[in-house]
């Protein structure tokens, strides 16, 4: 629990990534509605929201896998469309269901991704050793990805995301498939990355997951950022703030709907 207080050694204060009024609709449904926030180098941010709040879409927008309908994404002050290759070289992305080539061994999979990233043989060998160590994969490096358990798949996915030493890391529910021991290992890994000034955005719908490893929590609801909380050790207080942010919206909209049906003005509009 105390690990989130470990200060990164070389945190800078400049904004690395700035999202301005991002909007995205899929199948004519508004998934992300005007999302804006800043990420500074070494930040550890949790995207917290209920299921269907738009966390995954937000992360896919941030990782350039989806194009926003409107809004801007600025990387070091430059629109990512202007520096797409550089931006993609600087980010790592782990999807909720780790994407692996099932017919390849862990080593083949990581070697392939390393080569795609342009790593040469010596450097590639070194980086493979580093991610094996970081993600505790040495024991499974010769096993087919298709035969791995979900927890190990997640770790291989994380290793893929870390292979090229990204400065921004987007993790979509990374701890979902991990057992308690692996979760603890994962938390230690995140604090190591924070010490290396890697900016981590970590989504989850479980408050405890993100509150332990993140300093800042962005509460997402219906595609909007409804609260920007500082993480504390007081989980109950955080829970209260989270539910206040989420349910006040629900209450408002439910109340509005009920009152409109009854023909009475909604709360706050009566005066």
């Amino acid at each position, binding site marked *: 629990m105390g690990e989130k207080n470990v200060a990164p050694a070389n945190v800078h204060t400049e904004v690395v990534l700035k999202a301005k009024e991002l909007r995205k609709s899929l199948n004519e449904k508004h998934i992300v509605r005007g999302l804006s926030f800043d990420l500074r180098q070494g930040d550890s941010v949790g995207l917290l929201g209920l299921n269907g709040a738009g966390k995954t879409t937000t992360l896919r927008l941030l*990782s*350039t*896998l989806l*194009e926003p309908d409107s809004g801007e994404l600025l990387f070091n002050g430059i629109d*990512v*469309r202007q520096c*797409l*290759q550089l931006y*993609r*070289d600087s*980010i790592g*992305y782990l*999807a909720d*269901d780790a*994407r*692996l*080539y*099932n*017919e*390849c061994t862990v080593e083949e999979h990581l070697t*392939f*991704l390393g*080569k*795609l*990233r*342009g*790593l*040469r043989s*010596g*450097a590639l060998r070194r*980086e493979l050793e580093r991610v094996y160590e970081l993600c505790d994969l040495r024991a499974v490096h010769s096993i087919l990805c298709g035969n791995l358990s979900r927890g190990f798949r997640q770790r291989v996915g994380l290793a*893929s995301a870390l292979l*090229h*030493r990204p*400065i921004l890391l987007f993790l979509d529910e990374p701890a979902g498939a991990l057992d308690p021991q692996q979760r603890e290992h994962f938390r230690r890994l995140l604090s190591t990355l924070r010490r290396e000034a890697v900016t981590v955005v970590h989504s989850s719908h479980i408050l405890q997951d993100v509150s332990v490893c993140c300093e800042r929590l962005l509460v997402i609801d219906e595609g909007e950022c409804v609260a920007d909380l500082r993480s504390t050790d007081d989980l109950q207080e955080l829970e209260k703030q989270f539910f206040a942010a989420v349910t006040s919206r629900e209450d408002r909209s439910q109340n509005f709907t009920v009152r409109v049906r009854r023909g009475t003005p909604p709360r706050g509009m009566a005066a």
Partner: protein
Amino acid sequence: MMESLGKSSSFRRTVLRNVALIWHDVRRLWLTPFGAFLSVGILLLSGFFFFQYLSAYNLRLAEFLASPISQPAKRPSLHSDIIVPFVEALSFLLLFVVPIVHQRLIADERKDRNDDLVVLAGISNRQYVCSKFVSSYLFLAPLACFPLLFPVSLFWFGNPEFLPFLTSIIGLLSLLALFCSLSSFVFFLFPVRGISLVMSTFVLLFLYFFHSLKNILEPSSFWWVSEFSPVLQARPLFSGVLSLSSLYFFIGFSLLFVFGGVLSFDRERSL
């Protein structure tokens, strides 16, 4: 950071990345029993066709030898009676194999969302589509050439002409390039797995029998059918005439369909 990771210069890096992707795809097709099943299947069927044509040739040769000198029968030729129909039959077999290979190479990868990995690793949309075309071609070209061992055996027992045989191979490989580019275009146009397989097979079949339209419809109004029929364009090459216009036709249309695939993929993933 890139220097410290030992990354290559920009152009070399792009080339190495694409080579890595193509090598990975071709290797992936051969790693699983898929490649072995396909090659055995093609070898068996083409062997069957070859011995059918060889038997027919022997019958014609016997007729020729038995015919009276005053009214001699047409002397059968190894090239036009065995090699040409054999290569045509092989091209018809490939018509069904190409969509199956693309199903595995493109549709399965997109279903598992592994294309996200590739795109995030810095492969552009254009490079991705081109590499899929090249990978499928590099996988299928040896598969198409392997059964040519049957007609090669004729060189031991008979005296077929070598250059026309070589031209037939060029014709087969040209037709294969067109099939690969058209099929990959259809797969990028219809991202839904299954539908793309059916559509691709249907389109290739239509293209294969396109020249029959001329027989069904008014020949004088449909003169252009022969200009756009790949089978008719391949026929001079199959029969041993190195027709440059046919080669331009195959190169031009292959590039056109690859470009179409790039546009379809771009539209889906534009950023």
